[in-house]
């Protein structure tokens, strides 16, 4: 079917056509109008501490390089040589020294993409349309780059809202993460877990704030962890098992009905906050030591505000899922209509005790590593969902749960009390999606 001309008919307030997930043409269009237009997370400042440090990152379909210049500025460039198109960087990260050097014909470039040298330029180019100052001899830059509290974003479109305007209320993801450090800063733990799922990227974004799924999908791990947790609690002097077991067992003990107590708050551009504190305020000695340092840094009042922030997940549409109380995030890199890569990072709260880092590290390893005890079953569902959606067994995806009951104020849509499992976040994402897809660049 001519899907592109029918886009307006694809999204209804409470349901969406299956082609939105499975059609290759629609995928190309959403890469162009969403991922290659809006602000996309590239990486954290601390991934490239020294001049010449770089890492490669995919924005939509575009291979990009994030690189630290000698002027300390972080640049985001297309990973493409202006000569004949060769990739400039062939690996995921490294240090390029004081220049980029193309591996094909040895053109060199400054960290901001400006041409440095072409071998035998004088004799080779005298009298041609090109000279040392021709812009087409430079590596192309991302149209816009902005950083918020160390988190670097790029937009490949020169127009549109600023990063702060775009993030809106979802900016709390970065504030919540950084504020929990006594020094107000985080630094990256230098490891990225990368996992590929066989499904459209939107299934991941919807799942991250889908309060209806955890107790169903993660029952097996929740139960297993609960068994061992009980044994360990019995053996422990404190009568409590390590917190990591609780994080896992909660997937089973927080049963499906209890998830209605949580709330989703949905913002323009598709962003969403899932509330629900992650149980990170126990009264063990580690936490108390941390509290003390925090109170010293911020004062009692501000400290209470910071650790009282009620967040489970923040979804920054279209490609970032942040678990700020645990200092971790997953960046979504669509590889194709039915393949999606997630890059999973953990951050260290600067100035916080080692024990606090280890606590969130346990979650990073157990939940977010490639040997995950949790995501294995999500990925299984993503593949099954995508495969089912590719069939002729139905035309629609339903997002009707609690439709019409959400609370709306000034463009912000919240799930109503005791309706945390409302499919409001999916409806909100698709509303934003439809708007993005209509707007020509």
């Amino acid at each position, binding site marked *: 079917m001519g899907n592109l001309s029918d886009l307006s008919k694809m999204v209804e307030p409470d349901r969406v056509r299956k082609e939105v997930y499975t059609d290759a043409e629609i995928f190309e269009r959403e890469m162009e109008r969403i991922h290659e237009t809006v602000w996309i997370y590239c990486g954290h400042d601390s991934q490239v501490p020294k001049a010449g440090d770089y890492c490669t990152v995919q924005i939509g379909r575009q291979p990009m390089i994030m690189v630290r210049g000698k002027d300390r500025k972080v640049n985001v460039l297309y990973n493409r040589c202006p000569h004949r198109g060769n990739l400039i960087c062939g690996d995921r990260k490294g240090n390029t020294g004081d220049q980029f050097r193309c591996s094909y014909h040895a053109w060199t470039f400054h960290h901001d993409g400006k041409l440095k040298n072409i071998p035998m330029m004088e004799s080779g180019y005298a009298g041609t349309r090109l000279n040392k100052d021709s812009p087409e001899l430079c590596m192309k830059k991302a149209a816009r780059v902005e950083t918020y509290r160390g988190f670097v974003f790029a937009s490949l479109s020169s127009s549109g809202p600023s990063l702060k305007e775009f993030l809106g209320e979802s900016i709390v993801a970065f504030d919540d993460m950084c504020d929990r450090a006594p020094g107000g800063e985080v630094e990256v*733990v230098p*490891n990225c*877990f*990368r*996992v*590929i*799922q*066989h499904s459209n990227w939107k299934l991941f974004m919807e799942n991250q704030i889908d309060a209806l799924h955890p107790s169903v*999908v993660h*029952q*097996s*791990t929740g*139960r*297993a*962890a609960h*068994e*061992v947790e009980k*044994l*360990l609690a019995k053996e422990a002097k404190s009568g409590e098992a390590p917190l990591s*077991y609780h994080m*896992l067992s909660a997937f089973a003990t927080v049963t499906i009905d209890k998830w209605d107590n949580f709330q989703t708050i949905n913002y323009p551009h598709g962003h969403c906050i899932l509330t629900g504190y992650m149980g990170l305020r126990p009264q063990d000695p580690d936490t108390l030591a941390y509290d003390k340092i925090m109170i010293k840094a911020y004062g009692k009042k501000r400290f209470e505000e910071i650790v009282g922030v009620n967040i489970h997940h923040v979804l920054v549409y279209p490609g970032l899922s942040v678990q700020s109380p645990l200092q971790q995030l997953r960046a979504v890199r669509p590889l194709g209509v039915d393949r999606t*890569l997630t890059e999973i990072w*953990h951050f260290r709260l600067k100035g916080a005790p*080692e024990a606090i*880092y*280890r606590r969130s*590290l346990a979650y*990073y*390893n*157990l939940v977010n*590593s*490639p*040997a*995950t*005890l949790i*995501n*294995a*079953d999500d*990925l*299984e*569902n993503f593949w099954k969902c995508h495969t089912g959606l590719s069939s002729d067994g139905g035309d629609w995806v339903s997002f009707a749960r609690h439709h019409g009951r959400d609370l709306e104020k000034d463009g912000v849509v919240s799930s109503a009390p005791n309706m945390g499992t409302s499919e409001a976040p999916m409806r909100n994402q698709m509303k934003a999606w439809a708007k993005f897809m209509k707007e020509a660049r």
Partner: protein
Amino acid sequence: MKQQHEVEQFLYRQSELLDTKQWQKWIDLFAADGIYWMPPDASYKTWDGQPAIFAEDKNLMKVRMLRVLHPDAWSQRPLWETNHVVSNVVIRKVAKNGDIEVASRFHMMELRRDDVRHFAGSYFHRLKKTKNGYAIKLQRVDMANAQAAYDYVLQVWV
């Protein structure tokens, strides 16, 4: 010679237990304080306090085992088989008390639904001499694929 043979048999038995999904028996090969560790890359010196693909004591091993045995472990429903080959077994160190450090290489083929994946790399075992054989104090698994993007995930130990 005898020791080499014993150690080889031990490693072969361990991989056989994985391929035949005898999880509890596999866990039983570890000492009470034994650790199974797969670092994200070869440069890591310790499992403690660092990102790890696996860093499991026997309690966490038990969680993993109970999970895969749970009837609602959805991802365990489809056909799923593995086949390990272990080789290049070299005893690196023998302590006076009989404890041993041994290096080996493995190749694992995994079938999940209709998809085949290959994982390969090296094992490092620190083994404690026991009454009737060995117990694993530490098993370090350095996968050649460790840094690659994972097409799907690892559900049990490699």
